[in-house]
């Protein structure tokens, strides 16, 4: 809505948003991101969505004088932009004490992830920049959701803070670039959602072994995942300080998720019976890439004894039936990222299933109750139910529950990555919009 009001203002007409509760900070951040820090809005106490109708009216009545004021009174310019170029200096009894003071200030300013930050000294940043062929002032992209200008130097500064090494930098640059290509405007606004959308980075190609990225039990902490964790953290700090993905400003998550401590993993190409994911995406096997998925949850699909391809895939398909479905068009807009362990992928592949055939099998068997998928949204008076689905409003609850429908619109809405150690435990993530894969080699020295 902030974006819509800015479009109105650019047409020369006053546009004022009624903003609910904690979305005040989001309005500040969004108005800056979309190019109009002076945009006007008023704030009401509670989010309208789950209020009873009478409370919706009364809290609007309480704000009417302020609304009239913002529509008719002259506008004072908001405070100028904060400095983003100057270096900061910290004095301590010794180097460690100075680093502690830097950390305290950075945490207070919400520039970190809550964990200890490495100091991005000019020397450390200069060393980091040896990891790429690009000049420091090269603008890689405008990074969503806040559209900060992602220069190579800013990426390098955040990579240093994460504890990354120069050889990690090309992966981080490629991931930042990939994120800027995710979805359309709607896709980028997902990153600001009150749901826990979070990126997951998956690397393919020779760089995975060169850097020591783990492709087995890849999503946890510890020694084996040190590189996974550091590269993911570097990207996360870029997302925060370049993309301005700050909690309660442009990340409006309700509860949050540990997936926002972003992880970077590798596909287990050696254990896969199929072409690696980046080949599916049009790259050569000897090229290195990073793919950015936006995930919205995570579920373990355990298998306790199936050994036929059909049995394994049916179990996986049945386990993929969860979550909600959009009624905004014919398409449901649901996707699944499947991290398939070798103990599932190998028998499925050896029993004649191509990756595409496996996706088609999953699509065919992952069917669920439409009534359960749309329970999250009362149909009556809901503007997001398009004409295609209006007929549902005339059905009883039981009739809705009895309608069986595929969770995925198409087999291509399911993405299979072979990842994991020995055991038939698959991880399924609701995801979307579609992932973006970016080449890494182009950013190497």
């Amino acid at each position, binding site marked *: *809505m*902030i974006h*819509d*009001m800015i*479009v*109105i*203002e650019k047409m020369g*007409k*006053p*546009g*004022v948003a*009624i903003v609910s509760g904690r979305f005040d900070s989001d309005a500040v951040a969004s108005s*800056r*991101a979309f*190019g109009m*820090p*002076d*945009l*006007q809005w008023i704030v009401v106490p509670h*989010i*309208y*969505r*789950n209020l009873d109708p009478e409370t*919706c*009216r009364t809290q*609007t*009545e309480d704000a009417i004088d302020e609304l*009239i004021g913002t*529509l*008719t009174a002259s506008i004072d310019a908001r405070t100028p*932009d*904060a400095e*983003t170029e100057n*270096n900061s*200096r*910290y*004095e*301590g009894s010794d*180097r460690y004490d*100075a680093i502690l003071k830097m950390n305290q200030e950075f945490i207070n300013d919400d*520039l970190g992830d809550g964990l200890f930050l490495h*100091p*991005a*000294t*000019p020397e450390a940043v200069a060393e980091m920049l040896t990891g790429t062929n690009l000049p420091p002032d090269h603008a890689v992209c405008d*990074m969503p959701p806040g559209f*900060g*200008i992602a220069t190579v*130097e*800013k990426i390098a*500064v*955040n990579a240093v803070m994460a504890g990354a090494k120069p050889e990690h930098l090309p992966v981080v640059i490629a991931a930042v670039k990939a994120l800027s290509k995710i979805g359309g405007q709607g896709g980028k*606004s997902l990153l600001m959602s*009150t749901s826990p959308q979070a990126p997951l980075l998956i690397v393919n190609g020779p760089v995975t072994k060169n850097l020591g990225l783990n492709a087995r039990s890849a999503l946890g902490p510890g020694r084996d995942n040190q590189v996974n964790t550091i590269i993911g953290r570097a990207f996360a*700090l870029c997302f925060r300080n*370049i993309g301005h993905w700050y909690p309660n400003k442009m990340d409006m998550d309700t509860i949050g998720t540990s997936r926002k401590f972003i992880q970077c993993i590798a596909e287990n190409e050696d254990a896969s019976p199929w072409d690696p994911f980046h080949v599916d995406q049009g790259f050569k096997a000897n090229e290195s890439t990073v793919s950015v998925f936006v995930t919205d949850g995570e579920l373990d699909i355990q298998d306790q004894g199936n050994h036929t391809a059909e049995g394994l895939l049916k179990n996986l398909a049945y386990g993929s039936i969860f979550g909600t479905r959009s009624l*905004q068009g014919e398409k449901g807009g649901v996707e699944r990222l499947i991290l398939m362990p070798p103990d599932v992928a190998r028998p499925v592949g050896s029993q004649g299933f191509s990756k595409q055939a496996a996706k088609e099998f999953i699509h065919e068997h992952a069917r669920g109750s439409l009534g359960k998928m749309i329970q999250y949204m009362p149909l009556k*008076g*809901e*503007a997001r139910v398009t004409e295609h689905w209006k007929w549902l409003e005339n059905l009883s609850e039981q009739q809705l529950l009895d309608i069986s429908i595929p969770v995925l619109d198409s087999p291509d809405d399911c993405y299979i990555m072979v990842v994991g150690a020995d055991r038939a435990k698959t991880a399924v993530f609701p995801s979307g919009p579609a992932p973006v894969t970016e080449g890494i080699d182009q950013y190497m020295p």
Partner: protein
Amino acid sequence: MHLLEVKNPVAQQRGVISAFSASDRPDTLDNKTVGLIWSGTHGGDIALKRAGEMLQERFENVSVNFYTGGNYPTPPAIVQQAGEECDVIVGATAD
């Protein structure tokens, strides 16, 4: 004593570099057309309609137009239509 110098990790936002100013406001809403843009979220329509009613009560000869694209962001054509047909616009955002 040790002096530690570190570089700033925060990037300039493109929107701040090329910022637009807010448009001029009318002195009164008398004889104006007020546009209401609903994002489609529950309750926002009730709030906007109540705001429209109250503006009609407070000012003379106010017309109210209601717009929605059923979701957010609102489809550009609908925002454009509202901007062309109305003198001022009120929107509601919640989630």
